[in-house]
C-alpha cells in the first residue's frame, strides 16, 4: 500500500467511513456512558463496525477515539485509561484493514475551553492531546484526524501535538461550520480562511470540514476552502439535519442523495469523501460507487 500522502498526489479520490455512535448504541452502549468505554469493555464491537465500513468500500477507517483525550475522558473517570483506550481503538481497526486500508486516529474536541473563556491552560490541553495521540500511534494508525473542531486554538494544539510526536505522520484537520449571512463560521467565530491559515501554520497536511448542516452546504464549504489552499481537502458530512418522526430520529439525506453529489465534491477539489452523523455503511457504499464511476 502506497504511503497516504503519495496516494493523494495521484489525484485519486479516497473514500472514508461514516457514523460510529449509532452502532455503539445498538451494541450495548448506554446513554450517559463514554463511547470510548466500549474500547475497554467490548473491543469486538470496534472490529465489527470497522469491518462494516471497510467492506462498504472505505479506504480510510476511523478509530473509536473521538472523545479519547484525557480532558474528555475525565468526565467519566476514565482519564487513567487514556493510553489503553486509544491503543485499542487503533489496533481493532488495523486488525480489520491490514495493509489494504488506512487507519485514521480520531481526535475530537476536549469539551473544555481554553483560558480566558474556560479554565484550561494551553499546556494542559496540548499534553492531553499528546497522551491521546501517542496511544493512537502505538496502536498503529497511519493518519491522525483532528475533527469537529470549532475553536482554532484547540485544533492547532491537537495538530501540533501530533506533529511533535511524529513529524511524518499525515494529519487531517477538519472544523465544523455554520452558514451565516456573512459566510461560513464556526460557533467560535472562525472563518474558512482563518481555519486554512491557522491549521496550515500548525502543520496540517489535509484540511476540510465534518459534521455540519448537510451535504449541499458542505459542497459550498469545500469550494470556499479551495479558494484559500492547495492542500488536499476532506469532507465528512452529516446526512442532513435530523428530524424526529414517530419517536425515532431520521436523517433526511439517504445514500442516493450522497451518491448524486459526489461529482460536485470532486469538482470542488475534494480528495477524501466520507460521512459523519447519520451516515451508514450504505452511504459509504454509495459514495464508493460514485467515486469509482467518476
Amino acid at each position: 500500500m502506497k504511503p497516504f500522502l503519495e496516494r493523494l498526489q495521484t489525484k485519486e479520490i479516497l473514500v472514508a467511513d461514516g457514523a460510529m455512535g449509532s452502532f455503539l448504541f445498538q451494541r450495548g452502549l448506554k446513554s450517559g456512558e463514554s463511547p470510548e468505554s466500549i474500547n475497554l469493555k467490548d473491543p469486538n464491537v470496534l472490529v465489527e463496525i470497522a469491518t462494516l465500513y471497510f467492506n462498504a468500500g472505505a479506504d480510510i477507517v476511523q478509530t473509536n477515539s473521538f472523545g479519547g483525550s484525557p480532558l474528555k475522558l475525565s468526565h467519566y473517570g476514565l482519564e487513567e485509561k487514556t493510553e489503553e483506550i486509544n491503543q485499542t481503538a487503533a489496533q481493532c481497526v488495523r486488525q480489520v484493514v491490514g495493509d489494504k486500508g488506512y487507519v485514521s486516529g480520531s481526535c475530537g474536541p476536549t469539551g473544555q475551553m481554553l483560558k480566558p473563556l474556560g479554565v484550561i491552560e494551553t499546556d494542559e490541553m496540548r499534553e492531553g492531546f499528546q497522551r491521546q495521540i501517542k496511544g493512537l500511534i502505538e496502536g498503529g494508525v497511519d493518519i491522525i484526524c483532528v475533527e469537529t473542531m470549532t475553536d482554532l486554538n484547540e485544533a492547532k494544539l491537537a495538530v501540533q501535538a501530533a506533529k511533535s510526536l511524529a513529524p511524518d505522520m499525515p494529519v487531517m484537520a477538519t472544523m465544523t461550520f455554520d452558514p451565516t449571512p456573512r459566510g461560513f463560521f464556526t460557533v467560535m467565530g472562525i472563518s474558512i480562511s482563518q481555519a486554512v491559515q491557522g491549521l496550515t501554520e500548525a502543520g496540517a497536511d489535509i484540511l476540510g470540514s465534518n459534521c455540519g448542516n448537510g451535504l449541499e452546504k458542505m459542497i459550498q464549504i469545500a469550494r470556499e476552502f479551495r479558494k484559500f489552499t492547495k492542500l488536499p481537502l476532506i469532507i465528512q458530512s452529516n446526512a442532513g439535519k435530523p428530524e424526529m418522526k414517530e419517536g425515532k430520529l431520521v436523517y433526511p439525506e439517504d445514500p442516493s442523495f450522497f451518491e448524486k453529489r459526489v461529482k460536485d465534491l470532486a469538482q470542488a477539489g475534494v480528495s477524501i469523501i466520507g460521512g459523519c452523523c447519520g451516515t451508514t455503511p450504505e452511504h459509504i457504499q454509495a459514495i464508493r460507487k460514485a467515486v469509482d464511476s467518476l
Partner: protein
Amino acid sequence: MDIIKKISDYLQKGDDEKVFELTQQAIAQNIPPDEILNNGLIKGMDVIGDQFRNHEIFLPEVLLAARAMHAGMDQLNPLLSKAGIESKGKIIIGTVQGDLHDIGKRLVCIMLKGAGFEVIDLGTDVPAENFVEVAEKENAPVIGMSALLTTTMPAMKQVINMIKEKKLQNTIKTIVGGAPLSKQSAVEIGADAYGFDAANAVIRVKELIGVS
C-alpha cells in the same frame, strides 16, 4: 458619558473589571439597583444577544460579556433582594441525562439572566426526576432542557411525561433546544416551546409565562 451607558458599553466589550468598577461607582452614587440592572447590564446583554443572533459576534464575545455581566450582578443581587425587587421568574434549566454538553445551555442561562430571569442551572447529565423535583420545590413556571446528542432527545420526553403524570402541565411549562432539535421534533415530544437559539429561547420563555 452617563455611567449607566458606560456599564452597558463595557459589558459589550467583555471588560469585567471595568463593569465591576463602574457598578460599584453607580451604587455609591445612589443610583437605584434596578436601574443599573435594567438600563446597564440587561441593556448591554440585549445588544450582545441581538449581535449573536445576527451572527455579527460569536461565542467568545458572548462568554466574555457574560463574565462582565456577572461581575456587575454579584454586587447588585444583595441590593435587589433588599429592595424587594423581584426577578421576572424562576427558570430551571439543564442538559438532559446522558448528555454532557454544556455550551448551548450556558448560553441560554446567560441570555435568560441578562433578560432579568432567575436561573437555576442543574448542570449536565440531569436525571428526569431532578428537573421536576426542583421545579416543584422552587415553584418555577418553566423547565428548559438542552441536548446536543441525537440519542438523548428521548430523555426530554421522559421529563415531559413525568410532568403530565404528576398533572403539573398547567403550572410547569417546558422548552427544549439544542442542535439535533427542530420545531417539529419539539412538538413531537410534547414540549410547550422550542428555542432555536439562545436569544430565541428568551423570547419563547417570555411568551410561556406571559411577561415582556
